[in-house]
């Protein structure tokens, strides 16, 4: 095999986004020598998205300046196993990251905890509603909300999340989310100040007997110093969060919360422009010996390590496992094999609200997680009897932005071009708003990831093949959420409500959300999971996998808060258990 063999390290991290930075910091603090390999470039605020040029809608969103280019590597896609998968030639439905900081650079900052029942989706729903659809491959996570609570807390205090607690150690707090699991203490920062349209939503939802609250945000409501001593500034509501880097050091990202400390630690090393091709294993296949990677000149290196951790984007983790021949690939025919199984996504919809011109929302005064939400229809917070689906999602009026290329709300029936279109865009810009629904996707027998037989990346490796569609559960769930969102919207008294239901097959063309989950699912049963509840590979105990690829299904929230909690939970197990006695942390 080709490749120069390099000096060994204790730990090699594959990818240097959120999970790589979190884990890197924890492991160097525990005394290990840690190397992170990042396939993208070094990126930092002052050079790459400075406040003097960060507010550039064309460059960062429409020309994808911060995202992974499909030319470098992409996936193939089809809706069903009987179709022929074709490559995703340009980005659309989701925006995977590259470069240091990963998608933590260009997220919105909507930072949620999952519900206690979300971690027991199978056992909880079967107990309450009886047998589930046999094609639904949902499963319990093998961790509970209570297990993760200290680690949610740790991540929220790393980030300086702005929000209002709803459940402090079982005591309900007015103004917070009454459905959330108990938290040990309040958020580190108070909720953001609110703009006008979310306040109208709050009042309407409250008047309907629902439970609105200011959404938790990784946008700073005030200056903040985290437990690593890294400081963030107050958010300026510039309206350029998701798809953009924050020029103002006021959105939590690896750059603004961890990098300044970690990169100065002599036990930590980062190599950028270093793409890992696969995990290397010894002759038994039961032990990882390191990774094979390639630099941007095409030179290959073998990097030995005692512990390998996959911290790449969700579906890249699955791709690397498949390319490395670790674990049994899933077969939808036999149902056997766990690798690539449980791929899920998010089912989102919107309700546009058009008001008379005397309502002025100034939509450009925004922040990525500025909004008022209700959780009344998430998870199992409501009785699903007779509804024909499980799970749910939050409903929120976000005021993320008023960027004029992206945010053009026009009433239904408006032509797509010409004088009438132009007038509709101009007249509704200030006086319209949208309510979003953020629905769960339950894993399903025929939604999965495997290697594509026809298409290859620039390294000559097979592309990952994604087979995914929305099933009955998603459509029923999303229609229900959209109905509820429209009901709140009507109560806000606009002149027109346009409920945009998510109809038909899933398409990779329109942007929806970068919440790809599953493929290396976690669980307590090795026949249906790739990693155990400590995110340790069942097959190769010195290999760990971080990130949303371990979600067995995707609840109705943004994933980052739970990714953060799981990373710290796993770091704790690695440091306090694995290092003392390397080997499986759970017996099969």
């Amino acid at each position, binding site marked *: 095999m080709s490749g120069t063999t390099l000096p060994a390290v204790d730990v090699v991290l594959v990818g240097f986004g959120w999970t790589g930075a979190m884990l890197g910091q924890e492991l160097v603090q525990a005394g290990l020598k840690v190397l992170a390999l990042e396939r993208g470039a070094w990126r930092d605020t002052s050079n790459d998205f400075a406040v003097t040029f960060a*507010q550039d809608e064309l460059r960062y969103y429409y020309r994808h300046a911060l995202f992974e280019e499909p030319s470098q590597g992409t996936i193939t896609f089809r809706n069903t196993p009987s179709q022929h998968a074709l490559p*995703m030639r340009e980005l659309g439905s989701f925006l995977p990251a590259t470069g240091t900081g990963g998608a933590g650079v260009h997220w919105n900052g909507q930072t949620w905890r999952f519900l206690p029942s979300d971690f027991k989706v199978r056992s909880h729903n079967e107990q309450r509603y009886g047998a589930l659809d046999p094609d639904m491959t949902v499963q319990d996570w093998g961790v509970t909300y209570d297990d993760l609570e200290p680690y949610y807390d740790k991540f929220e205090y790393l980030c300086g999340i702005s929000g209002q607690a709803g459940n402090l150690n079982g005591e309900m707090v007015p103004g917070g989310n009454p459905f959330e699991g108990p938290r040990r203490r309040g958020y580190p920062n108070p909720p953001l100040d609110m703009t006008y349209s979310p306040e109208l939503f709050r009042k309407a939802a409250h008047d309907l007997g629902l439970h609105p609250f200011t959404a938790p945000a990784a946008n700073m409501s005030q200056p903040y110093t985290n437990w690593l001593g890294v400081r963030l500034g107050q958010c300026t509501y510039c309206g350029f969060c998701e798809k953009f880097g924050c020029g103002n050091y006021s959105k939590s990202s690896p750059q603004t919360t961890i990098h300044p400390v970690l990169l100065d630690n002599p036990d930590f090393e980062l190599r950028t422009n270093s793409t890992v091709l696969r995990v290397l294993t010894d002759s038994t296949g039961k032990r990882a010996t390191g990774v094979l990677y390639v*630099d941007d000149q095409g030179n290959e290196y073998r990097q030995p390590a005692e512990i390998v951790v996959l911290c790449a984007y969700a579906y890249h983790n699955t791709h690397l496992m498949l390319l490395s021949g670790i674990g049994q690939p899933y077969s939808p025919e036999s149902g056997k094999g766990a690798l690539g199984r449980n791929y899920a996504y998010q089912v989102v919809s919107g309700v546009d609200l058009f008001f008379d011109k005397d309502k002025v929302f100034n939509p450009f*005064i925004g922040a990525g997680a500025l909004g008022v939400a209700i959780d009344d229809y998430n998870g199992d917070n409501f009785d699903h009897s007779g509804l024909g689906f499980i799970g749910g999602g939050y409903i929120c009026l976000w005021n993320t932005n008023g960027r004029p290329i992206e945010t*053009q709300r026009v009433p239904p029936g408006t032509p797509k071009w*010409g004088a009438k279109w132009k007038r509709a865009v101009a007249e509704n810009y200030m006086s319209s708003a949208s309510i979003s629904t953020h629905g769960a996707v339950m894993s399903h027998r025929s939604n999965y990831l495997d290697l594509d037989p026809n298409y290859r990346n620039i390294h000559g490796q097979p592309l990952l093949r994604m087979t995914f569609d929305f099933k009955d559960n998603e459509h029923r769930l999303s229609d229900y959420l959209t109905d509820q969102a429209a009901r709140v919207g009507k109560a806000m008294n606009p002149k027109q409500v346009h409920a945009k239901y998510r109809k038909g097959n899933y398409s990779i*063309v329109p942007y929806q959300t970068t919440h790809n989950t599953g493929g290396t699912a976690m669980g307590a049963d090795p026949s249906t999971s790739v990693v155990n509840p400590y995110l340790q590979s069942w097959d190769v105990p010195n290999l760990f996998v971080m990130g949303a690829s371990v979600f067995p299904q995707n609840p109705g929230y943004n994933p980052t808060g739970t990714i953060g909690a799981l990373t710290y939970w796993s770091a704790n197990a690695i440091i306090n258990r694995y290092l003392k006695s390397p080997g499986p942390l759970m017996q099969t």
Partner: protein
Amino acid sequence: MANRKPTVLNRRSLLTGAFAVSALGGAALARSPQPPDFDPGNRFRPDEADAPAPVTGERYVFFSQEEAALMAALLDRIIPADDLGPGADEAGVTFFLDRQLSGGFGAGQSYYMQGPWSSGTKQQGYQTRLTPAQLYRTAIAGIEKHAQAHYGKSFADLDASQQDAIVTALEHHDVDLNGAPRDQFFSLLLTNASEGYFADPLYGGNRNMAGWKMLGFPGAHYDYRPYVAQHNKRLSIPPAGIYGGPAWENGK
């Protein structure tokens, strides 16, 4: 400054070098490529901020004169002049598109362009071999042919209602674009028109920030804290572009 930053012999490379010498021998080390070096002590790079380059010049570099005339007329039907603001061409959208198509976007440089090629379902998205620049060039020729066949004139010389009839036909995918994918072209046309009308003026469109003024969007501002609590109030914040604008001049 040519090429990359000078190699910095930092603590890590010293350690790596020492280990490598003992493990592999000096000769092996000398022949071996070195891994890409990221120097944490040198991570803030003065004078290397990756600011965008404004477009320059006035002449078209991608469109021929005839193509530019057709595109100007076509874009003016997509975004016509009226009391709300200038038409697309006056706002610089044709020029914007020329510069976009002559650069990396036109070349489809970020797209996955490896075969095999086949047309899939709508849900599988863009599958044409044409780059955006080739797509426009091919489609423009098709539109001109259509205009000549139906009206005996160039598209640019037709009256507005005739042009609108052709745009409607384009929208319904009823115009043969010399084999170029009709749905792909029309949706790209609408997106690019909107980009040119509303993107930062540094890219050549949105002249005089006309698109932003039409909406009341203040542009590349980064601090709205004083306005957050001003609910339901019409603000008059002069627009700012990344490289200037009324807000900058007022601040002088």
